[in-house]
């Protein structure tokens, strides 16, 4: 089974990859309502991610989800920096695992809520 992680692209993130080879890889989901990139993850790297982050899960699509937000932010940084969706971006993220865990520990206490009326 092939695994992947979805990198969501809001306008700000999209601007950072616009005009690069990655722009061709952008996928549109749900009738064009969502833009994203799919980063492929090998079996070996999937196991490493699950081992390092105990909230991580594999969903019904084979997507790795429920990793810390800090992981996802770093993943985008790696993608934007290396301009690739290959295994090296996941390796780049895992190289910073301690830093991500430190940030994740803080984000498990507090995440700012969106400013919408409820």
């Amino acid at each position, binding site marked *: 089974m092939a695994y992947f992680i*979805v990198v*969501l692209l*809001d306008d700000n993130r999209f601007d950072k990859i616009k005009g690069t080879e990655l722009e061709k890889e952008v996928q549109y*989901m*749900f*009738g064009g*309502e*969502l833009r994203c990139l799919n980063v492929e993850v090998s079996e070996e790297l999937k196991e490493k991610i699950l081992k390092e982050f*105990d*909230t991580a*899960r*594999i*969903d*019904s*699509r084979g*997507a790795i*989800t*429920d*990793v810390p*937000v800090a992981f*996802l932010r770093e993943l985008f940084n790696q993608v934007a920096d290396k301009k690739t969706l290959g295994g090296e971006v996941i390796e780049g993220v895992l190289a910073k695992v301690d830093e991500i865990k430190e940030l994740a520990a803080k984000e*498990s*206490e*507090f*995440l*700012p*809520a*969106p400013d*919408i*009326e*409820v």
Partner: protein
Amino acid sequence: MSSLIIERPLPHGGRLVERVIRDKEAAKKMIKGCPTYEIKPTLHYETGVPVRNVYREIMSICYGFFSPVEGSMKKAEVERILKERRLLNDWIFPYPLVFDISKEEYKELGVTAGDRLVLNLKGKPFAILDIEEIWEIEDPEELAHKTFGTPEDNPEVVKEPFNKKHPGWVIYRSLQPIVLAGKYTIINEPKFRAPFDRFWFPPRKCREEFDNRNWRTAICHQTRNVPHVGHEFLMKNAAYTGDVEPCHGILVNAIIGVKRRGDYPDEAILEGQEAVTTAGYIKSERRLVSMCLWDMRYGNPLESLLHGIIRQNMGCTHHMFGRDHAAVGEYYDKWSTQILWTEGIPSFGFPKPPTDVPYGLNIRPQNMREFSYCPTCKEMAYSETCGHKREKLSGSFLRGMVAEGVQPPAIIMRPEVYKAVVKWWKHFNYPFCNEKYVINKEKELEVDLEDL
């Protein structure tokens, strides 16, 4: 009357168990001079994090959700369940349910069979346990393995050995060694706090509500999640089953209990489900949101059996089951719940489906696949109907989106549901259950008690 008409089934075991004393004076007399024990959460055997609170089992037993179970199980009953998934009175039941204490507590209490023990909750009298037998769990790890099965003993559905990553296995592995077996009776009804109070429909009240709504047939949707639009379409379409007409009602029954980190808070789940109705996506005359207290065991086919029992007791005629029903990880075959309800699982004691064995269930399974977005049809489409390539929906994917602060498109999560999520996000400063939520929840629980 057409012979095809389906009537509401009797409760499992033939009658609803109701073990609740509402006369406070009578209750006071019942507990006079009895020893008292303060209910504590079961703590993870390694980490010390709460993984279960037996008060939820006492509530679900005494209000009849688990009929015909009446209390903490004797050793012979647990052994029979592990072997055949049957109670001593022959009715099918999936899990051992016990009142467990430490050896030190047992020594301190000094109780014996025949004694009545008062169970306090949050410092107030809550229930009594009339002790009929005291026995010891010799090997909790073996109990945990036997509860969920092994690849060797249950090759039809168990794919991987269970371990400490499985929250249900951890519950049984973390049990204290001394079991006080006997019937529970609630002597001081707890009061649910908002928002839980408005979703409390124990079986008798639920059946009365069905009567008030003229629901002869009702299909249950099991949930432990904030609904996305795929869930909504599952409910809408599964409800087209029924008898000579679609089911009259959809009962959403949320399992409320100990949470895993990363789950949505129970409050957001209930109000998110409610928002589907209040915003009119499924009208309120046709849908009722309710809850049951239970610390999920994530036992896939076994959990589905418990769900069938709970919802038959609540009065449902049908129950929808999907892929990976009440599952976590890849311990069970993805379709093992559907295998149970269509073929049976002989190694678990079911040579036939649980509806086709003696002392089995009368609720009808509605085995569903999944809904996802089809960009060609431009709508939510059923996996077994739509011939196009579709975009799968997943709760985990949505959680990631929410965590990143991206509002999901309305085609996958209704804005009213998202608002319910954000409401409780603002309340808890976090959109999901974190360690703080889990620990506070197990301190505060869903209820308060008055003095007796």
